Structure formats: C-alpha cells, structure tokens
C-alpha cells in the first residue's frame, strides 16, 4: 500500500518526525502543512535534515501555510514541491491511503 503522509509536526519536535519516517516506505510521499512548513525553509540545517531523513520520499509543502508564515516559494528548499489545496486533493487520490502524524 502506497501512503501519503501528512505532517504538521514543527521543527521543535523533530524527533517525532524522525520516528515517523522510520515507518515510511520508499514510494510513500510526504506533505508538510501547518507548522511543519518551517522544515521547508531553505536553510543549511533544513537541507541537511532532508538529505539525511527524506532522501527517499517525494516531499510537498502547502503554499498557504508557507505564505502565512512569511516564507516565499523562492525561500523554500528546492527538493520540496510547493502545492496548493487543489493539488493536495489530486495527490491524495494517487495514493492507496493517508497517514496523518502529529
């Protein structure tokens, strides 16, 4: 079963996200939304985190939550694709199920 993982865990609780990733399969994808979008700002620390933890999984980030937190698309990690709500729906339909983490 290919899953779409929904992450709203903030960087302050990175350990929870690392634990979550251990349960992910290679072809699963991840959507970062709400406070988790902070993981996607283009910083050295975030780049390092993604290359260690999410090298296998396709990652997406919700534009509305980025905007609300003053992070522009240009300031986002290049490996993470910025999506809107409609695109999130389309993405959900491509997977066999969803796993919401907290």
């Amino acid at each position, binding site marked *: 079963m290919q*899953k779409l993982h929904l992450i709203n865990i903030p960087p302050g609780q990175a350990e929870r996200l690392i634990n979550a990733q251990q349960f992910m399969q290679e072809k699963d994808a991840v959507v970062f939304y709400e406070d988790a979008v902070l993981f996607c700002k283009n910083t050295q620390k975030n780049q390092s985190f993604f290359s260690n933890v999410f090298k296998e999984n396709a990652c997406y980030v919700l534009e509305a939550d980025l905007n609300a937190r003053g992070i522009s698309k240009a300031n986002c990690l290049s490996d993470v694709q910025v999506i809107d709500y409609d695109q999130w729906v389309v993405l959900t339909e491509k997977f066999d*199920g*969803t796993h919401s983490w907290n």
Partner: protein
Amino acid sequence: MSGSVKTCLFVHQNSPHGSANPVESLDMAYTLSAFEHEVSFLFMQEGIFQLLHDQKTEGLGFKDFAPAFKAWEDFEIKHIYVDHQSMDDFDISQDQLLVPVEVISKQEISQLFSEHEFIFTD
C-alpha cells in the same frame, strides 16, 4: 467517504487531559465506525495513560472520558492495540488498563500501518 469501507487506525500517543486531541480523536473514531468503517486503536507513548484505570479528574474540573473508552464494544471497534515498549517504559501492566488490549511490538506496529488505509494520530 464515497461508500467503500475503509480500514482505519487511530493512533493515540498523547497524554490525556493536556489537550483536547484524545477526545476529539475518539469522537472521530466512533463516528467513522458508526458509518460502517473498520476502526481500530493503537495506544503508544504517553497515550497509554488514556487507558489507565483510576483517573480521578474532579480536581481539574474535567470530565473523565475513561467511560467513553469502555464503550468500544458498543461502537464495534475491531482491535485495541498497545505498544509493548511504551508499557515497559511507563511501568504499566495490562491489568491496570480500562479495557482488554492486544500488546504488540514495533514490528507489528509497522505491519498495522501497512494494513490500514486511513491512519490518524491524536
């Protein structure tokens, strides 16, 4: 929900009473079950305290939602799983819990995740 039955797993990992999350998740779980979906619970980390007997909440002025867990049979909940490691970490035994549970390992948890189509964490 377009008519097909979904296998749903509700993962409870938070301590009771510190947030509304456990109660809201429980409501969602029972609602989905009432709509004929197959619903199970997994309690892990601090979440196992939600199942601990003798929770006396009067001092906080909170309603005790422990009786709501006891209604699991009425709502046709399929399985109530508990993470073995979490039980050990918090030194809690099965006979201290409100309802009968199936104690499982991390490997079995991974298996559970791959078997359920909709997984929600509190």
